[in-house]
């Protein structure tokens, strides 16, 4: 049976598509699935550094599309998890170097061998986005609880519908529970009142994301990180598990709760 091809997209830049792709991919691989991640952001590749695999790149997506190497040769095996692979983007080319038809072929070939093919889409709604969604049969939309990001997510929902990619699912990223609590940040419920979409995960704003990206170690591998836990839960939901959708709480004990109660602690 062929694997699932899932595009991770957002419209707006900087909301966490690449981090999400790396971590959901890593979490799925940790569950024993065979996973390949495609960096479709040609010219601005980043998935390699988030995964800490930047020193291993020889061939890339454009080489594969142009036939100057075999698909197998361009795949980089993750150093921590041997069922996770990366197909990196080219850094010195642009989005026009690959056509949607070629992406369809590459993702279909990979789906023969892998359980999951995750495509990290570039920001925007132009050629790079069209390439990224070309071979996908499912979509995850990443947004943050900000007016600009939610607006762009709405546009993406419309474009995916037009491309016959039905039932995308929403990841709400960088949620700050302290701000939600005092009514200064939209939570998942608020966003779902506005967007016609089903949710699949809430990622708390977590410093461990920055630290793990600094190190090139996906946070999904960190058992103590709340964001890591949220990514692992998304992976299990993709696998069909029915987990309650609540953001992982800070485990800060009664002093933290007291400080928060009297408003002395920001989170």
């Amino acid at each position, binding site marked *: 049976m062929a694997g699932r091809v899932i595009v991770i997209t957002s419209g707006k830049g900087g909301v966490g598509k690449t981090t999400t792709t790396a971590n959901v991919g890593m979490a799925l691989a940790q569950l024993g699935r065979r996973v390949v991640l495609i960096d479709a952001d040609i010219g601005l590749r980043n998935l390699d550094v988030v995964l800490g695999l930047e020193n291993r790149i020889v061939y890339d997506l454009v080489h594969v599309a142009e036939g100057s190497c075999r698909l197998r040769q361009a795949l980089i095996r993750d150093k921590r998890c041997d069922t996770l692979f990366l197909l990196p983007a080219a850094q010195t080319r642009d989005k026009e170097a690959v056509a949607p038809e070629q992406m369809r072929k590459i993702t279909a070939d990979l789906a023969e061998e892998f359980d999951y093919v995750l495509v990290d889409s570039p920001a925007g709604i132009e050629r790079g986005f069209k390439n990224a969604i070309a071979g996908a049969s499912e979509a995850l939309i990443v947004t943050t609880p900000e007016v600009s990001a939610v607006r762009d997510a709405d546009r993406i929902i419309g474009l995916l519908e037009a491309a016959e990619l039905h039932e995308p699912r929403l990841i709400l990223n960088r949620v700050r529970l302290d701000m939600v609590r005092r009514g200064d940040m939209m939570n998942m419920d*608020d966003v779902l009142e506005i967007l016609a979409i089903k949710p699949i995960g809430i990622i708390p704003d977590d410093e461990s994301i920055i630290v793990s990206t600094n190190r090139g170690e996906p946070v999904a591998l960190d058992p103590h990180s709340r964001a890591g836990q949220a990514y692992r839960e998304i992976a299990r939901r993709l696998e069909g598990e029915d987990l309650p959708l609540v953001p992982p709480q800070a485990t800060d004990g009664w002093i933290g709760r007291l400080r928060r109660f009297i408003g002395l602690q920001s989170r």
Partner: protein
Amino acid sequence: MTVLQLLQRLWGKESERPSKEQAKERLRLVLVHDRAGVTPDRVLPLLKDELIAVISKYMDIDESGLDVTLSTEDSQMALVASIPIRGLRQRL
């Protein structure tokens, strides 16, 4: 949180609406525009023609003076139609 904010909270001065409600309201409004096929100037002429057809069945209206626009006042979007009537039609 500063001491001042803490005091304000204790005295119940934080009567301002939570900012997320403003965010949701502004989003709803902007998405009506976004979803309406990008621009209202494609929808409005069609709507205008159909309005004329319907209203003309019952009233004699001045088509040249007819004005249909979208207005956004008080954070609500409204369809505003100004239709000068010359006279009522005799219904059979």
